[in-house]
């Protein structure tokens, strides 16, 4: 079992590795394509600049990107008293500054944390979650998220989300334009894009595997255990998880890229999405918690 400090170092290293792999992958793919098609080498420079820029962006603005993708808005103390004060209190107990507090207007129940370190962190919950959990249950959910903040899980998960999101947008674009251009036989550009598209489609499962490797499911158990250590209320976390698993409303704004950020899988019962699932089944998490009672 790793301790918190090893976990933090681990996460910082993995974040670096993921960024390097991303830059390497984009550059290699573009290099291979431009080499085999005898294209201008300036394409490679553009690719390197683009991949560096998106890595840079994912590190510094990853939290803002994730929040705006989820259409989150800041929560006020008056409107969401319990959520706001619980986050305040648990940050105090965790010896970290109070993160920014956001909410998503959605009947679906879910929560996530994002940011690059405890000084630049955001905790976000859906209004559905805030309505259905009582204060003690909410406390354990927020404690779970704050443990992701303290462990630097948020840095790794946010970077992975944004970069995977960028990749899947690229794949989509390339694939669509290759379909679109196929009728136009003599168009050189269309051919290039088609090749890029096919290469990326071949790589997509490998990328998915990569997410799995980067975001080991163990960190969810670790965050659950830290939440119990902080609040001493395993039963409340069990109740909260049970309520979360009984919720069948899908979170509209979630995508495969951002799914790993949430406390539970935001796609309810979707087979294809659960292939990419980075969350252990809730039943297993509850079993682990019941042993702490």
């Amino acid at each position, binding site marked *: 079992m790793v301790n918190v400090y090893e976990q933090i170092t681990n996460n910082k290293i993995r974040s670096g590795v993921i960024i390097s792999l991303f830059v390497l992958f984009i550059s290699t793919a573009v290099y291979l394509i431009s080499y085999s098609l005898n294209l201008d080498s300036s394409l490679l420079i553009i690719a390197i600049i683009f991949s560096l820029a998106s890595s840079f962006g994912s590190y510094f603005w990853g939290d803002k990107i994730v929040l705006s993708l989820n259409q989150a808005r800041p929560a006020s103390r008056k409107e969401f008293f319990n959520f706001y*004060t619980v986050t305040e*209190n648990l940050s105090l*107990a965790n010896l970290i500054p109070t993160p920014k507090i956001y909410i998503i207007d959605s009947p679906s129940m879910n929560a996530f944390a994002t940011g690059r370190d405890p000084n630049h962190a955001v905790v976000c919950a859906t209004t559905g979650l805030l309505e259905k959990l009582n204060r003690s249950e909410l406390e354990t959910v927020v404690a779970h998220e704050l443990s992701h903040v303290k462990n630097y899980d948020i840095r790794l998960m946010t970077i992975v989300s944004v970069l995977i999101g960028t990749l899947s947008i690229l794949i989509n674009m390339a694939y669509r334009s290759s379909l679109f251009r196929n009728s136009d036989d003599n168009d050189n550009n269309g051919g290039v894009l088609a090749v890029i598209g096919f290469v990326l489609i071949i790589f997509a499962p490998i990328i998915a595997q990569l997410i799995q490797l980067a975001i080991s499911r163990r960190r969810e158990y670790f965050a659950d255990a830290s939440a119990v250590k902080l609040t001493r209320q395993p039963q409340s976390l069990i109740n909260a998880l049970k309520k979360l698993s009984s919720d069948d409303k899908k979170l509209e704004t979630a995508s495969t890229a951002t799914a790993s950020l949430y406390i539970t899988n935001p796609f309810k019962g979707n087979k294809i999405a659960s292939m990419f699932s980075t969350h252990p089944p809730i039943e297993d998490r509850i079993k682990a918690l019941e042993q702490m009672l």
Partner: protein
Amino acid sequence: MIYILALILILALFVFSFYNKLKRLQVQIGASVQEIGNQLKRQANLIPNLVDSVKGYMKHEKGIFEDLTNARKSVDEAIASQDNKKIDKAQELISKGISSLKVIMESNPEIQTSGLINNLMDELRDTADKLMYARRTLIDLSADYNSSIVTIPGVWIASALGFKAEKGFETATNSDQIKVTDEEMKNPKVTL
């Protein structure tokens, strides 16, 4: 020779990091004690003011409800006595009560006391939580500190470096809380 040097270097590094860790914990323990004071001060400033404002509203709204109840009572009495004079007087009381109720409803469209009391209860729970977490921080930090100076390898050098156990959150250990009486062993009976 080089091995001995390496060994000394490793030992020195260990002692330095151990010393720094304990010093950092001591500072954090000191800060967490201050945090408890900070939260107590917040509570002392906040709660009496909230209670006063709730009381003010309660008094204000209670007066109107009392007026109305009295008016209703006098109506009942007047009807029972079948006396025209009394009925007139009762009607007057009622219209007075209703007009002051109207004023309140216009100035604040809903009766506010229940909302204020809910708010007060939320704040009471929150302030109790804040104090509990502030104390827990002190307890956890001192437990961390104390266990590093009494376990191997820290125990070998802690006293040489002048580290003493921290008291943490002082709790009486010889009072009733660590004993359970026969009475307390029984299942509680709840009567409402």
